[in-house]
């Protein structure tokens, strides 16, 4: 149980005196402070002769009350006097939050800013793209300067360490497609076409698309968070001053890794989806595992493979660009790192899906339908 500081009021000859009692410490002051704030009558004198220990928070409470009432403080101990003096010297009325507009202007202001920021964002992104191309050019002209170790490390992070999760996911998706496809095709007695469905869909669409989503979630976010944190801790500035171009050292390896790993991962994913399909076909449709696989070779045209392999590096590029760009835009605080990371993933996946729709139309127009 705490001994809350308190007070009594004494009146003598028209002079109101507040007599404080108890220790005036951060742990005991809350009640006294609230009571003093609730008081409305004017007070001329504050008696501190019955108070115990005091800290600056106690001193501030007394000082503020005295100051508001123009009251004199009597009976303060030597220590209390020093603290009262200290808080008096430090008194301030400055705002403690950044200035904020009232609601309606703020909404308008925010909207305007967002529109302008969007326009600037587009320009900045184009600028970033240009800078990346220049950096790529520099790397090609001075291949010696290129950081092969960084590239290999990114291969590992983006590609090799994703094998487990991408494989499992693709296997399960393959099962779902074959199983659901068979359920529909059975109505026409065309169950055998499950093989066409699974094979073509895996190579053309699902393998690459699901991999892209997984890479955006794993690596796009990692790029943004890592580069963003490096910006906050001034590592990027330090690199620049030492003459290391962050674009060449950080971004080019990441982009190359994503571009080169995506086709491999996409192909791998398509294979495992087919294995998943064959597995479920063996179990529930009565199509033997090996028959399923050998039929795949007959029913999947080779251009389906090319469709997947053409799309994959483009998706990798989009995801890596979004991640690196957002990372480089981080400013100020850790909250921004979070926001930018989210943006990197959302933009990456969104752009991938939009482009995938374009590709679908394009490939059917060129006769690879």
């Amino acid at each position, binding site marked *: 149980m705490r001994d809350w500081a308190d007070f009594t009021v004494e009146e003598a000859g028209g002079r109101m005196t507040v007599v404080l009692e108890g220790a005036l410490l951060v742990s005991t002051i809350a009640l006294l402070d609230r009571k003093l704030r609730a008081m409305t009558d004017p007070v001329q004198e504050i008696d501190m002769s019955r108070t115990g220990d005091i800290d600056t928070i106690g001193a501030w409470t007394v000082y503020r009350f005295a100051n508001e009432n123009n009251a004199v403080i009597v009976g303060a101990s030597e220590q209390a006097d*020093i603290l009262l003096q200290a808080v008096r010297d430090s008194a301030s009325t400055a705002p403690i*939050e950044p*200035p904020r507009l009232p609601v309606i202007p703020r909404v308008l202001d925010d909207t305007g800013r967002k529109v302008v920021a969007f326009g600037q964002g587009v320009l900045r992104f184009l600028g970033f793209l240009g800078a990346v191309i220049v950096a790529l050019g520099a790397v090609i002209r001075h291949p010696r300067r290129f950081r092969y170790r960084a590239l290999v490390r990114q291969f590992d992070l983006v590609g090799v360490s994703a094998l487990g999760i991408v494989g499992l996911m693709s296997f399960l998706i393959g099962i779902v497609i074959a199983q659901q496809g068979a359920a529909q095709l059975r109505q026409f007695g065309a169950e055998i076409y499950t093989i066409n469905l699974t094979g073509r869909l895996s190579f053309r669409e699902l393998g690459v698309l699901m991999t892209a989503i997984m890479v955006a979630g794993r690596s796009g976010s990692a790029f943004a968070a890592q580069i963003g944190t490096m910006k906050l801790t001034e590592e990027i500035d330090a690199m620049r001053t030492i003459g290391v171009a962050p674009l060449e050292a950080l971004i080019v390896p990441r982009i190359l890794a994503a571009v080169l790993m995506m086709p491999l991962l996409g192909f791998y994913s398509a294979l495992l989806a087919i294995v998943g399909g064959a597995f479920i076909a063996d179990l529930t449709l009565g199509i033997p595992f090996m028959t399923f696989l050998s039929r795949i070779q007959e029913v999947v045209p080779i251009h389906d493979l090319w469709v997947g392999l053409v799309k994959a590096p483009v998706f990798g590029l989009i995801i890596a660009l979004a991640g690196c760009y957002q990372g480089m835009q981080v*400013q100020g605080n850790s909250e921004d790192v979070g926001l930018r990371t989210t943006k990197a993933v959302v933009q990456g996946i969104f752009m991938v899906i939009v482009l995938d729709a374009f590709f679908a139309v394009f490939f059917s127009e060129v006769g690879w339908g």
Partner: protein
Amino acid sequence: MIDEIENEELLEDVLDEARSDVVGHFDGEYPIEIEGLRNSFGSQVIHENLSLKVRRGEILGVVGGSGTGKSVLMRSIIGLQMPDEGEIRVFGKNTIGVMPDEESSVRSRWGVLFQGGALFSTLTVAENVEVPLKQFFPEIDAELRHEIARYKVVMSGLPEEAAAKYPSELSGGMRKRAGLARALALDPELLFLDEPTAGLDPIGAAMFDSLTRELTDTLGLTVFLITHDLDTLYAICDRVAVIADREVIAVGTIPELLKTDHPWIQEYFNGPRSRAARATSEAAGRGKSVDKGADGKA
């Protein structure tokens, strides 16, 4: 005037919100006691059989070469670093093996200034100062809390406009001061300062020193002060602990330390920078605080 009923309501509000685990002042002799401490990272042993006692009401300077483990020692005391062996008692209570977010009765009574400032980057300076107040004394009225944040900011030597700024908008030295404002938020009995004056201009550093001394004298603080600043050592430290060879090799007032013949101590206190600092300190008559440690409290 406020009437009885209103009084009752206010008391109830306060009691509702207040935490139950806040305890009073410590009145033992040693707020910090360390015995047989051993710390290591992998195969690198930082401390071996280190012992140290900090007296109540003193400013203990902690010196040692870079990388000798001063910051690690501080982290062990405040429970952020799990030692391999040894005992650490703060306010007579064991801090080893206690999770950092438990044991608030001890935590509300110390303030910590980290070497890097460690401000919360999504909060303004004033909001940073309010965090410990809100955490440990939620019963304090919001109005009072804002006022406390304001005067703490000014008291730590920041301009008053800085209260509404975010850490990323401050200079390096200002961040240090904002960190100090947060460390002082609760008027703690025990203050840990990790190189508080590094990165401050000399005038600012001197102000910082006198603020620390003044608060120590008026509030009876105990200060654990890691520093490389010789002026600070001479001007305000009652005693100095020297860390070398993985342990505290000597503790005492500067004159006492000068009598030991450990080569590092001799080099440290008899180097040109140290002589200069001593000369200024003596010229300014500030050597007093050092002497006081020698005859009074020692």
